[in-house]
């Protein structure tokens, strides 16, 4: 990374209140993102992927959630220190988010073109007419067929894939530096999923924006990501380039995830589900959070939390495991 990174997250910790006590849902998460780079956040439901994204964009529900520490640096500013008014200027403008459910993420009573133009008018000085023209260009850019004719159509007249394209056009409207994509293809058919992924990749390299792509689908990760952060129970347990991760997974959890992908070239009986469950947020074990499900566990694993370190000779490949990465000095059993 020769240039300044587009986004730096340092020591991000987000807590939620359950029954009067605060429990961390995301713990001390750090990563940086270069321009034109895609980082995939991977993990099973409830591991803190979405909360990480919501913390970055400042949308953690205030009623029972709070970001307790860390920094999120964008354009030289720490987003966590900004007030709500300043954050509103950044959201949708410098940092945008697309969501999992295209069917419900558009307002059903407003025409789609209006909704795309609205983001533009809100963040720029464009006249209504200029915003409309720009919105039409954006809809054409995300490959909505006969966009001009469909500009004033309502969301229910669009298919799921088309709606997700509209959402992408809205997120792209102001040319954000960072795009947060929270499972944007999970609700779509496989063929549409591939089209949307290709579109996202294309738009990313065109605009040079950085993207955080949240998914639980490792197949999607392989096709879109440059680097991967695997999350488990609120921690990043492994951080590596996509090639390294698939070739030589370091953390036993990553390894287990890779074994649980169905593949056409293997028998279904080879699938290995991961036994057990993610520990609840209110009862985290003292040591490694994965220890209870780990086939390689040692005595130390249940006592001490392993650090996120690179084992000797692994380059920048980080893992959080006593067995595989040890203290970062080559690992000793």
């Amino acid at each position: 990374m020769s240039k300044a990174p587009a986004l730096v997250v340092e020591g991000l910790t987000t807590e939620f209140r359950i029954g009067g006590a605060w429990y961390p849902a995301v713990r001390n998460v750090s990563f940086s993102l270069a321009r034109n780079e895609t980082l995939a956040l991977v993990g099973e439901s409830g591991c803190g992927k979405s909360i990480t994204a919501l913390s970055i964009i400042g949308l953690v529900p205030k009623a029972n959630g709070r970001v307790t520490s860390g920094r999120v640096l964008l354009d030289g500013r720490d987003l966590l220190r900004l007030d709500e008014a300043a954050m509103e200027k950044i959201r949708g403008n410098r940092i945008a988010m697309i969501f999992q459910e295209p069917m419900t993420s558009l307002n059903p009573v407003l025409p789609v073109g209006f909704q795309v133009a609205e983001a533009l008018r809100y963040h720029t000085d464009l006249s209504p007419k200029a915003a409309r023209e720009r919105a039409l260009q954006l809809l054409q850019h995300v490959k909505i067929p006969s966009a001009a004719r469909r500009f004033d159509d309502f969301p229910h007249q669009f298919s799921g894939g088309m709606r997700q394209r509209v959402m992408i056009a809205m997120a792209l409207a102001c040319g954000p530096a960072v795009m947060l994509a929270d499972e944007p293809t999970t609700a779509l058919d496989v063929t549409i999923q591939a089209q949307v992924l290709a579109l996202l990749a294309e738009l990313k390299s065109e605009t040079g924006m950085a993207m955080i792509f949240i998914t639980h689908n490792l197949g999607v990760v392989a096709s879109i990501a440059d680097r991967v952060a695997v999350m488990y129970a609120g921690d990043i347990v492994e951080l590596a380039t996509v090639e390294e991760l698939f070739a030589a997974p370091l953390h036993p959890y990553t390894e287990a995830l890779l074994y649980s992908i169905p593949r056409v070239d293997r028998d279904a009986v080879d699938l290995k589900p991961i036994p057990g469950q993610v520990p609840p947020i209110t009862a985290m074990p003292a040591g490694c959070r994965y220890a209870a499900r780990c086939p390689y566990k040692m005595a130390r694993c249940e006592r001490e939390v392993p650090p996120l370190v690179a084992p000797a000779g692994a380059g920048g490949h980080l893992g959080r495991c006593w067995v595989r990465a040890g203290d970062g000095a080559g690992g000793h059993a």
Partner: protein
Amino acid sequence: MTAVMTAPRPGFWIRLRTTILRHKIASLGAALVALVALAAMLAPWLSPHDPLEQNVVLRLMGPSADNPLGTDSFGRDILSRILWGGRVSLLVSTSAVGLAIVIGGALGLLAGYIGGAFDRVTMAAMDVLLSFPTLVMGLLVVAMLGPTVANLILAITLTAIAPFARIARAPTLAVKERDFVEAGRALGFSNLRIMGIHILPNIVDEILVMASLWLATAIRTEASLSFIGLGVRPPTATWGGMIREGFENILDSPWLAIFPSLAILVIMLGLNMLGDGLRDATDPRLRHE
């Protein structure tokens, strides 16, 4: 009503028109309402006589060519007085319901959106308002402040704020949890914009149904207050006042009370039919038949 209808909702009027036209009872109701509203608006041109012109020689006459609906005890033309009285009824009721929609709707939207203590305090205040029967509130305000058109509007507005606050709050609670509100936040929209542009158009259906039903209530309240002598002062023609005057001669000249009662009946029937039709049309269970 205008405040809600100016909400930016392209195609709203077209949608409303199709909704009404598709529903037989609603279109009949709309026609009745339009008939009465037009008659009242065009009163200066439609009236055969001055509504205040007295003619002692022609008092308590039955329907005739010159006085199609007869004359009252001062010899004033009943038809002219009904047409002019409609102006008072419609002015008072639409102003009161319009104000109640703006104030009550805004309170309900805010309470539902903000939630928490603001919601609880606002809705408790609404419950206090609701505990006054419409007529009692009208009596209270008019007796204290005097029987003017402005005070009548104030009295009816006060009783209608709470129902509109409730009808706006309930769907707001549901709509604010929907994904497009979260998506709007992710685009940096302020709370005001989310409420005004994204939530309001989604709850306007319910408010509209309520408005047509409350217009009927407001007309009835105005007539009731006029009937007991707390409405606009005579000699200004009001439907309620005319029924009261006719009541004194009900045995020998029944048309004095019957014709203004028919006017009230027609507009109330029209508004209720329109309201029921709109409710059927916006009921999610019936929407996609």
